[in-house]
């Protein structure tokens, strides 16, 4: 009997989703669109920085420094401004993102071991890339400086004494796409589960079908199960689809087990669907439901989960807030499974946190729903 009723609700919901082109579009195409945008366009690597050089020295040393910049692969030499006004123009027109100014006597000072400095003018209109440029330049100059110091002391250029041999594991080319795919899964799951679920329940309240359904001997359990099951399946399919597409387009290495992935996504989805239901018990109109969903799930998932901004660089207060953002834990697990091939048991802490979230929200939602239903 319960099965008949649950199935009736689930089939009805699925038919409504299929009939509603707009929702369908959001559920199916937005994930694909985001994947392409984030995969191809959104790139946090800074490369090919247009560099202007004003070389007032024109010595072997100054040319060496300039080639060190260009040969690093991060900088493209674009212009040679003759005077400060030309530098201004270069930066203003955005022809150059940075200008390196080498003083006269640079070579002589450097070779004789006297401290000297070069100036780097950076366009700070994009703070993120400016910071990266500074980082690159500091590294290059430090290496060059070590070389001169050694030459001055020993007399021959054998290279620096201390070097770093970086080995980047799991994502050796440091491609953003690989890093973003797990975040994208969390984001899509949150979108379909929380937003769609809360909207679909609140819509029934608005239209009045909810009251009609409550007149039936249905009970909240088959109603909730039937209502959320379609979104659960769609979200799961969406998540699997994202991984598959990323594997094809971005060579995402799916190193872990699919079963582990599905298990982790399912756990996350239970919490998210429960959260959607909880919102629907609070909101009376679709507009309010959407606003609440946006503020409590969509934005935190985007901003406070470590999806785009690293949690460790947030202010202490915000770091505390991230502890109640389920996506934070989910991302750790997902990245572990997809990029590292780690087994689920390693993430018992994160999985525990996700379970606690799911249980608490599910409890709250059913409590409120039960009170409203009878």
């Amino acid at each position, binding site marked *: *009997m319960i099965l*008949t*009723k649950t*199935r*009736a*609700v689930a*089939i*009805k919901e699925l*038919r*409504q989703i299929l*009939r*509603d082109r707009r929702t369908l579009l959001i559920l199916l195409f937005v994930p694909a669109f985001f994947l392409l945008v984030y995969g191809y366009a959104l790139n946090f690597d800074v490369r090919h920085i247009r560099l202007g050089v004003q070389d007032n020295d024109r010595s072997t040393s100054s040319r060496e420094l300039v080639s060190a910049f260009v040969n690093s692969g991060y900088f493209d030499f674009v212009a040679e401004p003759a005077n400060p006004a030309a530098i201004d123009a270069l930066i203003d027109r955005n022809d150059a993102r940075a200008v390196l100014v080498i003083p006269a006597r640079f070579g002589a000072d450097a070779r004789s071991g006297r401290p000297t400095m070069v100036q780097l003018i950076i366009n700070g209109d994009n703070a993120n890339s400016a910071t990266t440029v500074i980082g690159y330049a500091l590294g290059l100059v430090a290496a060059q400086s070590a070389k001169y110091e050694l030459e001055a002391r020993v007399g021959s250029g054998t290279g620096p004494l201390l070097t770093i041999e970086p080995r980047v594991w799991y994502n050796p080319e440091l491609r953003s796409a690989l890093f973003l795919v797990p975040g994208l899964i969390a984001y899509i799951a949150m979108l379909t589960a929380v937003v769609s679920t809360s909207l679909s329940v609140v819509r029934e309240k608005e*239209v*009045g*079908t909810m*009251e*009609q*359904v*409550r*007149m*039936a*001997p*249905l*009970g909240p359990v*088959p109603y909730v199960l039937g209502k959320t099951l379609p979104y659960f399946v769609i979200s799961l399919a969406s998540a699997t689809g994202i991984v598959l597409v990323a594997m094809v387009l971005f060579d995402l290495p799916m190193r872990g087990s699919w079963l582990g992935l599905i298990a982790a996504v399912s756990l996350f989805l239970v919490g998210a669907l429960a959260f959607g239901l909880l919102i629907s018990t609070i909101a009376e109109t679709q507009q309010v439901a959407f606003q609440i969903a946006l503020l409590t799930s969509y934005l935190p998932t985007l901003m406070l989960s470590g999806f785009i901004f690293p949690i460790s660089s947030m202010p202490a207060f915000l770091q505390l807030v991230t502890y109640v953002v389920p996506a934070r834990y989910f991302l750790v697990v997902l990245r572990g499974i997809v990029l590292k091939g780690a087994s689920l048991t390693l993430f018992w802490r994160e999985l525990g946190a996700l379970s606690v979230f799911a249980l608490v929200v599910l409890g709250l939602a059913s409590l409120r729903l039960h009170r409203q239903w*009878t």
Partner: protein
Amino acid sequence: MSNPDDLSRTSADRTAGRELPAPAIDARHLSRRFGSFVAVDDVSFQVRPGEIFGFLGSNGAGKSTTIRMLCGLLRPSSGTAIVGGIDVGRDPERVKPRIGYMSQRFSLYERLTVDQNIVFFGGIYGLSGARLAERRAFVLEMAGLRGREHALTGSLSGGWRQRLALGCAILHQPPIVFLDEPTGGVDPLSRRRFWRLIDTLSRSGVAVLVTTHYLDEAEHCHRIAMIQAGKLAALGTVAELKGIFAGRPIVEVRSSKPVEAMRVLEAMPEVEKTSIFGTAVHAVLRPSAPDVDAVTRKLSSQIDDPVESALVEPSLEDVFLDLVMRTPAPGASPPNAAQGVSAPRGDRGDNP
């Protein structure tokens, strides 16, 4: 009942009810307060199986609140409601399989087809397989929707939707049906057709409780309860209700100056009260009043205009207006009345 073998298996207490004609609905001293507002105030009535019971009242009088309590959606503040032999306040879930409910909003899924709606509502009442197929065919036939199974419900006109909503409410063959203003926004022809369906339903033994504010529709009901400001103002058959005018003849007066005629009539000692009915004026005469002709002559001489008048049978509207005027609006009454009470008080403060 259209399907007796099916009914015998739903519950034992209905079999008992057949031997002892128990009421299908038994409301005893039902009250519901929302804060300090009393929406339903000590309402008692019974509805027998096969009876069409009309619930009349203006908007906000407490009709829908009463229905919601009888259906188990709202707990009564006090009093009990026994529906289909079950105490609704105690066990609302057990009442639900025995009742059908259709509201003024015809709450169907507009983005689903006719057929998909039927299958859904059948499903949540636990119907499946052959039983669902049989009931589906019945509803399509009854609503005249054969051939339109795959039409989007939202594209149907009011009459079709109304009949489909009724069909969805009785898919599970409930012995009790609640109709909350079922004819709102539907054309007169569809309304007539709808009432024929209700008649058929009641003849098969189903108890029907219907709320309406169309007084002409109330004539279809076997018995009528008039509810005013949450209180039961009158209860009885149409004839019984009209009986309150026994000894107080009603004169219908037609004149080219109805407003003036009304004013003059109001001032006559033999007239108890007047009210406007379209272009005519109904004047209720006091029992002691002289004959109609005397009143007519007096009136036409005073307003200097030919007057036509005749004794008329009281209509339900007369009854309703009479009851509404008689019931003093208490402090906690519908918004309109509450405003009427508070307005003079405000005036006094503004104009000393």
